[in-house]
């Protein structure tokens, strides 16, 4: 039996002073932010200054709000670039100060900024740092800021999308400091003895999703759901009309998953029929007055609690153009990373494709799309993906000295597909 989440957090905090770096792997919704807030307060309590690194302005703002909410006595400095306008929710917070220069922050307990902003700071060293979303951070960014701290806690989700570049990085492959690798890969290759902890419980994913996502995308480490099979309920308060869309929603409400399968056909990426199906599902979900009950109580599934995910930007544009309420989030996997909704509707990356490319097979992409939901995930796909996977030529080039990454995209896709087949309408 694995340690309880609380025990893991205790272990992490206990390890902090013992090691120069501590890594915490956090599967989807496993309480990464909670851990960051806890660790921040823990370190701040020692009286030593702390810097926090996140990847986007949105993530930074989120952390500022969370820390300030939970620990109002802490003074938090939000460091930003020149063009940044802080959202109103930030300005309301008493202990928070926003500035573009460290010296204007008035020496707070905690300074938070994006990795890009930190890269411009110099001539000061913090005894502690927390690096959030460290698996999505490219190692060259870490190189620019690692001189700013003495010890650090690295937190992130190893199953999501890897960082990338618009240029070919073959010339660095196999190097332990390959700048295109994630911050954590490079850190661990140079410091293999650092402790790596794992948060064992997903609070987001329901009991219907955790085992699927865990087996497909975290085959060696695994995690479980924090809620039991009956703890999350999704109810459609108005009756359906027996259409495939309605039946898909009913299946999803019942089991947490649904695969709306369209006839097998090779299509362009912005497959109109599939786009229509996605839009119709979202529309019907709102019309049927879905209500989600969970350990957090009962609430209607409003448009802002629904997300639509796709692989490509043109697909996102086509879905948006299909006339969804603007409150529904429609985005690519890249941009859905780290977000959470009650219900997600996913256009399967391989739907309508004739050949799978490395892009389509990247396990992180499917992992993000299949793990954003608290209640249910509805996947829209054309039939034929199994045959497509069967016909996929597996002849990826192999670079010497580059550790093999698991899970394999093919296997992960196969595992998810097998599961979805049981929820086909």
């Amino acid at each position: 039996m694995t340690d309880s989440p609380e025990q893991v957090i205790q272990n992490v905090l206990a390890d902090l002073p013992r090691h120069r770096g501590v890594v915490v792997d956090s599967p989807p919704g496993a309480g990464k932010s909670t851990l960051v807030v806890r660790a921040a307060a823990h370190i701040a309590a020692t009286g030593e200054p702390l810097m926090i690194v996140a990847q986007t302005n949105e993530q930074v703002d989120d952390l500022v709000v969370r820390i300030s909410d939970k620990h109002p006595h802490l003074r938090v400095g939000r460091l930003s670039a020149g063009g940044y306008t802080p959202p109103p929710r930030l300005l309301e917070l008493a202990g928070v100060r926003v500035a573009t220069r460290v010296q204007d922050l008035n020496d707070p307990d905690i300074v938070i900024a994006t990795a890009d902003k930190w890269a411009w700071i110099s001539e000061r060293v913090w005894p502690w740092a927390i690096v959030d979303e460290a698996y999505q951070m490219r190692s060259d960014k870490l190189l620019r800021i690692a001189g700013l701290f003495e010890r650090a806690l690295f937190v992130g989700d190893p199953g999501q999308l890897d960082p990338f570049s618009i240029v070919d990085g073959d010339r660095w492959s196999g190097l332990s400091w390959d700048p295109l690798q994630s911050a954590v890969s490079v850190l661990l290759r140079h410091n293999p003895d650092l402790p790596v902890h794992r948060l064992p419980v997903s609070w987001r994913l329901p009991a219907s999703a955790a085992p699927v996502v865990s087996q497909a995308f975290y085959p060696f480490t695994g995690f479980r759901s924090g809620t039991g099979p009956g703890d999350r309920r999704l109810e459609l308060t108005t009756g359906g009309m027996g259409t495939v869309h309605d039946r898909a929603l009913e299946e999803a409400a019942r089991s947490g998953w649904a695969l709306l399968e369209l006839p097998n056909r090779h299509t362009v990426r912005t497959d109109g029929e599939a786009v229509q199906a996605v839009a119709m599902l979202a529309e019907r979900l709102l019309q049927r007055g879905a209500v989600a009950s969970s350990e957090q109580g009962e609430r209607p599934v409003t448009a802002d609690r629904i997300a639509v995910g796709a692989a490509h930007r043109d697909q996102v544009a086509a879905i948006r153009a299909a006339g969804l309420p603007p409150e529904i989030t429609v985005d690519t996997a890249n941009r859905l990373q780290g977000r959470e909704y009650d219900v997600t509707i996913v256009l399967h990356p391989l739907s309508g494709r004739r050949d799978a490319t490395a892009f389509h097979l990247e396990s992180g992409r499917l992992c993000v799309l299949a793990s954003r939901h608290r209640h249910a995930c509805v996947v829209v796909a054309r039939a034929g993906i199994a045959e497509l996977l069967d016909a996929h030529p597996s002849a990826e080039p192999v670079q010497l000295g580059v550790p093999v990454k698991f899970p394999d995209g093919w296997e992960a896709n196969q595992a998810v597909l097998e599961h979805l087949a049981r929820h086909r309408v």
Partner: protein
Amino acid sequence: MTGLKREGDPVRRLEALRGTTPPRPHDARAIAALAANPGCARRALMDGAGIDKDAAARHLGFPAPFGQSPFAITRGNMFEALVKADGCAELLRMLRELLDLPVEEVAYHDVENVGAHLRHTHTRSLLDHAARSTTAAEPVSAATFYDHPLLSLSIAGHTAYLEPDLVAFQLGGRFHVVEVKSFSVIDGQADPAAVAAAARQAAVYVLAMRTTLEELGHDPGLVSHDVVLVCPENFANRPVATLVDVRKQLAVLRRQLTRMTTLDRLLDALPDDLTFDLRPDDDGRPTRPVAELADALSRTTARYAPDCLSTCDMCFFCRDEARQEGASDLLGRQVRDELGGVASVAEALGLADGTRTPAEGQEEIARLLRNAERLRRECLT
């Protein structure tokens, strides 16, 4: 894997497909190549029936564009000899460093010294003996190289014997496959395509060894998924050893072998009298009329992609066929995929020009193509 051995119809059908042409043995390279285009029914049938695709392509007038330079062959042989000289002394030196071995001495078994017909049995008993040592009260800790072991693997109901151009290394009952290749590792890096090919081949050996051990009642996990790749370092002949993790290649191989056993489905769709027989004469020269053979092959569906040009002996034949058909496959997988369901060049251009009415389901690609055509015209005038 022996469970795959099947009697009866499919096997007979495959033999009929091959006819009087002698079967081409599946070597590790051929098995590894199964992964190159698993969606191609023509290739699956020809491979399943053990047909010499190179000979077939030659007879059809589309010889494969693969050849090996005598310089490369000489160099490869020289390098292998160097690595294996003095009972693999050089190899031992490298393995000691790479695997951090406490070994001073190493035994060397050249299985080739045994007569060819006994080699396979001999290999099995050597592996059995070595594997036993892990469970024995006093393990035989002496390291051993097995050179030219003859392994077998069941492919689509046939037992394939693998060309024994490898060395297996055993210490304390644990095995590593050693693959000697003559491409260079320069500053720690080698041609990724060449490494991938080596890894696929090595995975075949790992699987064959694991299967053998399993059949003998041992733990297949005794064979490491880390294979030792030995290549010349930098610009010299001095060998360097690198560990390559072949777990992914093993998974792919298992998938492909399972697929091979589903040939029945493909066979069912073929006319009963169909054969790819080359009808060789006494000297082995094919006598079957070329048009007849080409016609027989055209009854099976190929899935041509330009990538075949570097992997399949039949590539020029299939490319020619794709040209005759005006298939957009000619332009590559990406173009074909981008065109949605439009398979033919004429159809795609007709949609772009607006001279062709889109069929049901083609409205979107038609719109995209017309838009692209409008933009191209605007830019070119």
